[in-house]
């Protein structure tokens, strides 16, 4: 008896499903590829991107648009070999009209060579390498590069009265741009970079570097690190009782920094494009959805970046609809203007670089808060 009722229920669901099908079939479905590291050393970032993308896609589906969008996620492990294979795969799939990713600049650029050749729009949420958007007219990025952030921080530090600054950054393409863009502007303003060193990502012991910095007695330290290295650095600063003020970039903006470094993170200043305590509605919606989906604390800069990248792509799709091709999607991406994202308003300039408003923030009482100076 019970079984029969279940069967009946199942049957009716199936019947409803088939009835519903024709209505859905009329809606075109566009496919977007997303290449990102879901395993390997940088998996934590890729998994965040995937969650953020799914939130964006979910909200889009609920908005009741006249077309549907599907995202195909492929794991690149931040490995160039795998990245280029994925790029070929996406290019081969004629139903894929645009691509998001990859995470690292290296994999993004190697894949970009393939997208350039095939004519596929590519929007990376994080590739900050200066040459990435120079590969071809098909590459876009949704992250402010150090070309924008570096000079801004230089001005901030200079205005704070610092004249002698030590600069350290991770030894990656991004770290290189952190140092050069900051140092050029700071020197032009009349300041002095008294110490500059690169470290390998995941360095366990910053004490030799901190000791050397302390010896040069700078007014402040400008740092280019992600949250894991940042937490180590700040904790070891405290252990060595070095109290020089620390400034950093938006890359270190992550709640995990405070979780890992605890009270030692207190006082660090940084520039950011995304603050989860921003009262505007879209930010609060995203933060709430993020907490509900992942069960984690507030999202950091990078998931917000990915969330916006997906939404920029969806908005461009909507403008290109119903004549969606790779070419028309590229043109619509290029036409993105004042897109209201959670990381601020995004406009792509002629070089397909975003210009965003950066805010100044500081760690105060265990939270990132906006500050004036």
């Amino acid at each position, binding site marked *: 008896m019970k079984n029969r009722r279940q069967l009946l229920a199942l049957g009716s669901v199936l019947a409803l499903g088939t009835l519903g099908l024709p209505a859905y079939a009329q809606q075109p479905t566009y496919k977007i590829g997303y290449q990102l590291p879901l395993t390997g050393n940088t998996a934590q970032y890729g998994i965040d991107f995937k969650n953020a993308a799914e939130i964006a896609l979910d909200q889009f589906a609920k908005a009741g648009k006249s077309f549907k969008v599907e995202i195909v996620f*492929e*794991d690149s492990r931040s490995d160039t070999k795998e990245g280029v294979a994925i790029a*070929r795969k996406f290019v081969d799939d004629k139903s894929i009209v645009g691509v998001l990713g990859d995470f690292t600049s290296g994999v993004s650029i190697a894949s970009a*060579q393939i997208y350039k050749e095939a004519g596929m729009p590519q929007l990376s949420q994080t590739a900050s390498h200066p040459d990435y958007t120079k590969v071809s007219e098909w590459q876009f990025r949704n992250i402010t590069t150090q070309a924008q952030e570096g000079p801004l921080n230089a001005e901030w530090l200079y205005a704070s009265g610092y004249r002698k600054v030590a600069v350290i950054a991770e*030894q990656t393409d991004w770290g*290189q741009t952190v140092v050069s863009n900051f140092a050029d502007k700071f020197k032009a303003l009349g300041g002095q970079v008294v110490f500059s060193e690169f470290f390998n990502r995941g360095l366990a012991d910053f004490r030799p570097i901190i000791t050397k910095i302390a010896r040069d007695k700078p007014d402040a330290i400008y740092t280019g690190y992600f949250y894991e290295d940042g937490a180590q650095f700040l904790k070891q600063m405290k252990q060595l009782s070095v109290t020089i003020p620390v400034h950093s970039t938006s890359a270190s903006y992550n709640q995990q920094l405070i979780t890992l470094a605890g009270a030692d993170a207190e006082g660090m200043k940084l520039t950011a494009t995304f603050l989860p305590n921003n009262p505007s509605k879209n930010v609060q919606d995203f933060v709430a959805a993020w907490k509900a989906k992942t069960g984690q604390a507030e999202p950091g800069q990078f998931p917000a970046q990915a969330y916006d990248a997906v939404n920029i792509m969806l908005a461009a799709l909507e403008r290109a609809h119903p004549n969606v091709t790779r070419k028309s999607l590229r043109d619509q991406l290029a036409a993105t203007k004042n897109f209201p994202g959670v990381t601020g308003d995004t406009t792509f300039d002629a070089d397909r670089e975003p210009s965003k408003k950066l805010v100044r923030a500081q760690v105060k009482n265990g939270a990132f808060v906006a500050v004036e100076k």
Partner: protein
Amino acid sequence: MNASDTTSRRWLWTGLILTGLFVIVPLLLSLAGRSYFYQIANTIMIFALLAASMHLVTGVAGLLQLGHAAFYGIGGYGAALLATHFKLSFAATIPLAGLMAALIAFLVAVPTMRLVSIYFAVATLGIGQMLHVITLNWVAVTKGPNGILLFGGMKLFDIDFSKPVPAYYLVAVIVAACVYVIHRLSHSYYGNALRALREDDQCADAMGINTPRLKLESFTVSGFFAGVAGALWAHTAGYISPADFNFNVSILILSMVVLGGLGSLPGSILGAIILIGLPEVLREFKAGDFRNIIIGVVLFGVILFQPRGLIGEVSALDFIRNQFGLGRKARSDGKQMRVGWL
């Protein structure tokens, strides 16, 4: 069975391999009509060359090499810098990149040749890391972590080698030629001498084999082919950075050689096919996070149940000797004696 028998069989097998590589595989690839498969095929061939070059030094000569990716990297960087700074044609950069890697391998080999077993392994590990750190930190020349973009494309005689089909043939021809040389080196009396040195270098020394010289030669030749593979990778990918040549790559190549069978050339190539191909096959099956675990299980299973590798050295040598190069000697009773190599 007579001598001409082996000759005809050799031609049969050579023909089969060449038809497979230059006709059947491209035909299948074009039937599939997806550039994705060409990409995988190229990556497999480049890693087959890397595995084959490591096979010569680690499998045949028995020198555990833990820094092979460094020579791969020198080739990649050599080719990229020659093409971007000196505007050389890609065709010229490939052999030059090989020579650069061979030169560095030679310089590295001179002081390390007296080392044996684990000491040699640690020395190559150190050298590999050193070269990696140099590419990462010598920003003025290598652009450090920024990597090098190759905008030039690959054009020669009006053929654009960056398109999938010409790229496949380019890589296939070069890899086939290199693997042929490695085959001749490892399946000959020269290879026997290397094996003797692997089994017991003091004994080999006593037999009149110049062991330091053989080690030096095999290491340099292996470096040359790794360099060629690096150049092929740089040109087909269009962008290289130090991360492409890190320690993990050395271990990947070593895994290919061990998986296929230490000392077995067909095994090394099979190892490359499996370790590059399997992750992509699993991607098709949406294995997700299990991809890496499955690869680990395969490696573990092979080491556990087939410790000599998928194609062990003995069976590989047996096969190659019978099909390609069985030497013969007339016995006093007029019959042919099967001995040695051609």
